[in-house]
């Protein structure tokens, strides 16, 4: 029976090509625009490290100005970064399985290859744990150890792409790379890594490319490197040297820890609270105790990685879809009632109301499926347009298999919902009414 209804549906839809294509186009537009908005949202709100996002935590200590909160209008928030003093103190704890203090830094790399000019690049100054913490595998070599961090040894890990460029892709561990006029030794080559969003540092663009050169955290002290990310100071301090800057109430270090269990989290929270209380006695941390350890997904929400504009667009795209559906209801009503004589005859020949209703719904479902497929085309076009408008969005505007499935399924479901009323109306056609006219 299903196949017979399908045949009837296709015959009926092909009989009125103009109305059918209008309906398919309307469904496709509504679904296409809506799916494009959802796609961008879905990729922005992506969990970049699902298997351990519950274990990775960003650490915040409220060392900010007693007179005002770090963020205007968000008094519950502590600064996003830590002071140098606090970052170094937290590194002494052995509660976390791994931890990494870090900031972004601008370096000049002077390649030994004659054909490459020196270039300036953004790098990450961090602890050796960084790679294991965020699950970045190595192609060659390994991360540096804790002693290299403490001593500020001139070691470097480069990404596979950088290794291709600088060393022709060979195992470069043990080789020398000149950075800021100093000789650094390559200890490892890490796999290319591009988490979306760039959750470990969302300060200067949550969807930027990650850094591809990594140096030990202590090197900053040796070479007097400032952060090339954000540095925020609140206290009126007379800062006249790098040494004084390191001791200042300026926040510029990001801090991540791996805490596998709830017990670890409680222990760590107690540790940082105790640390801050100790510092309060020394006259620092004048604000109420507000230390936070926040897991990845919540962190991305707190940092408002998904832009408000995208949420507004989802709302508007949804209303657009609803308007398209109202439209389709009208179109289907016209079409189905146009078939009333034919239905009347079927009813007179013995078809039950339920059978007629089912038949109409199958026709509606077929329309929805066609609309969903065409909608994918519109969604793809819209995403191409979005890529044109936002050059940095290439990886935020692509369709994946899940989204394709959602698009088609939602097209079929919404069209069937839209078709319920017209189908109900038409199956109530009195069997006799149209026989008399013949």
């Amino acid at each position, binding site marked *: 029976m299903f196949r017979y209804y399908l045949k009837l549906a296709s015959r009926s839809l092909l009989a009125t090509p103009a109305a059918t294509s*209008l309906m398919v186009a*309307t469904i496709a*537009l*509504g679904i296409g*625009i809506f799916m494009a908005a959802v796609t961008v949202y879905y990729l922005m709100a992506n969990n970049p490290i699902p298997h351990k996002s519950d274990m990775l935590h960003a650490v915040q200590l409220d060392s900010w100005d007693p007179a005002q909160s770090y963020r205007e209008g968000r008094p519950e928030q502590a600064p996003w970064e830590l002071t140098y003093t606090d970052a170094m103190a937290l590194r002494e704890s052995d509660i976390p399985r791994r931890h990494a203090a870090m900031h972004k830094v*601008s370096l*000049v790399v*002077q390649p030994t290859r004659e054909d490459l*000019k*020196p*270039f*300036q690049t953004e790098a990450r100054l961090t602890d050796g744990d960084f790679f294991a913490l965020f699950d970045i595998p190595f192609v060659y070599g390994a991360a540096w150890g804790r002693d290299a961090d403490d001593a500020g040894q001139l070691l470097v890990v480069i990404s596979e792409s950088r290794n291709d460029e600088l060393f022709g892709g060979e195992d470069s561990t043990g080789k020398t790379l000149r950075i*800021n*006029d100093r000789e650094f030794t390559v200890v490892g080559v890490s796999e290319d890594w591009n988490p979306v969003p760039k959750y470990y540092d969302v300060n200067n663009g949550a969807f930027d490319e990650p850094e591809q050169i990594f140096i030990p955290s202590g090197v900053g002290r040796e070479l007097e490197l*400032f952060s090339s990310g954000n540095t925020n100071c609140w206290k*009126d301090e*007379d*800062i*006249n*040297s790098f040494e*004084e*800057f390191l001791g200042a109430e300026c926040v510029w270090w990001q801090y991540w820890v791996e805490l596998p269990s709830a017990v670890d989290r409680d222990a760590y929270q107690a540790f940082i609270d105790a640390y801050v209380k100790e510092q309060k006695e020394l006259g620092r941390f004048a604000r109420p105790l507000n230390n936070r350890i926040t897991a990845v997904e919540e962190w991305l929400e707190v940092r408002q990685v998904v*832009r*408000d*504009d995208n*949420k*507004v*667009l989802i*709302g*508007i*795209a949804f*209303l*657009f879809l*609803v*308007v*398209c559906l*109202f*439209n389709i*209801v*009208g*179109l289907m*009503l*016209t079409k189905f*009632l*146009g078939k009333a004589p034919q239905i009347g005859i079927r009813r007179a020949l013995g078809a039950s109301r339920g059978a007629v209703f089912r038949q109409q719904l199958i026709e509606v479902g077929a329309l929805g499926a066609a609309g969903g497929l065409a909608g994918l085309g519109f969604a793809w076009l819209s995403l191409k*347009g*979005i890529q044109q*408008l*936002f*050059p*940095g969005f290439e990886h935020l505007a692509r369709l994946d298999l899940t989204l394709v499935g959602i698009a088609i399924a939602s097209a079929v479901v919404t069209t069937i919902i839209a078709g319920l*009323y017209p189908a109900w*109306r038409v199956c109530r056609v009195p069997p006799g009414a149209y026989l008399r*006219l013949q």
Partner: protein
Amino acid sequence: MEFGPIWRASLRNKTGPVLMALQIALTLAVIVNAVFIIKQRIDNITRPTGMDVENIVTVQSFGFGDDFDLQESVPEDLAALESIPGVLAVTSSQHVPLSGSGWGTELAGSSEDGAPRVNGAQYFVNADAVNAFGVALESGRAFTPEDVEYPENFGVPLSRVIMTRAYLDALFPEGGAQAGATVYDNLGNPVTVIGVLDRMHGAWVGWDKLDNVMLVPRVMPVEFNYYIVRAEPGERDRVMPQVEETLLAINDRRVVKSLRTHSDIRDSSYEGDRGMAVVLAVVVGLMAMVTGVGIVGLASFAVRQRVKQIGTRRAVGARRRDIVRYFMVENWMITTIGVAVGSVLTIAVNYWMVVSFELERLDPLYVPVGILALWLLGLLGVAGPARRASAISPAIATRTV
């Protein structure tokens, strides 16, 4: 006019009119809110920056190695860049305005404890900065080469600055502050404002204090800085490649990068606003189209259902334009109900956006304009079907009963 009979006739078959009214209500809500957002974004993008953005080229010089000294290299670089034919003025600058990178600062209008502080963006620039940015001096004077300082560290207090009128007024809310005023840095050191600018935009285009800008004549002891090169009108693109060549020829212990036009930098910073405006404009257009098609469809449906009644009316004496008027009036009544519901919905959608996303409250004037637009759309949509209805022959009344 026969409002009563038309109204009662539509009530006989409510589905079509209800669908149409709902569609119009939603369309009004979306279009009015979207157009309001578009207007705000366009205002944002097109507000005057105070600078001669179209004629400026910017470039970053990033020194490396222990023997590179920015403070030594800046005077030499400036002289070389100024001698490029077609260059009007050059300054060094710590960052580029409108770029999204910058250096925020806090000042107060009084040295008393607890005096309110006002945030702004500061640029460490050189003698010719006013000319190089192309900003207009409202009062006071521009910097001279004697004003430019080369401090050994970050903590050396400021002495003379130029600031925007907006920043000065924010520091002295009672108004009337002029060039010569004294402001105070965060350690309470007095700073003399030697010049006031009409207007100049700072670093972050999304910041509500974008107009608070201060120029400081100094070269900081760091490795990198930018040069702001203002070309004579029409010369920018010719000057651009020479800027990079000139800098590289002077000193190769540095990386010269980010050679960009200032208009390109501004456009990148407004990418979000522009993108949002374009996306919304496309949605508004599609929405108007879909609703228009819907009105045509439902009107045609209404006509088809009433072929015989129309024929009968014509047979008993109604003129063609009576039939056209009938459908026009009917459509107008439905649209009116739609826009009435839609106005409430519009306010609700705006309220949702204000509460959830801190968007601005809707200017009420947008609602009547939207209503007019939808009335027009409705009448345009119904015109075709109504004309076809009026072409129905009176004879149809006599054919089948």
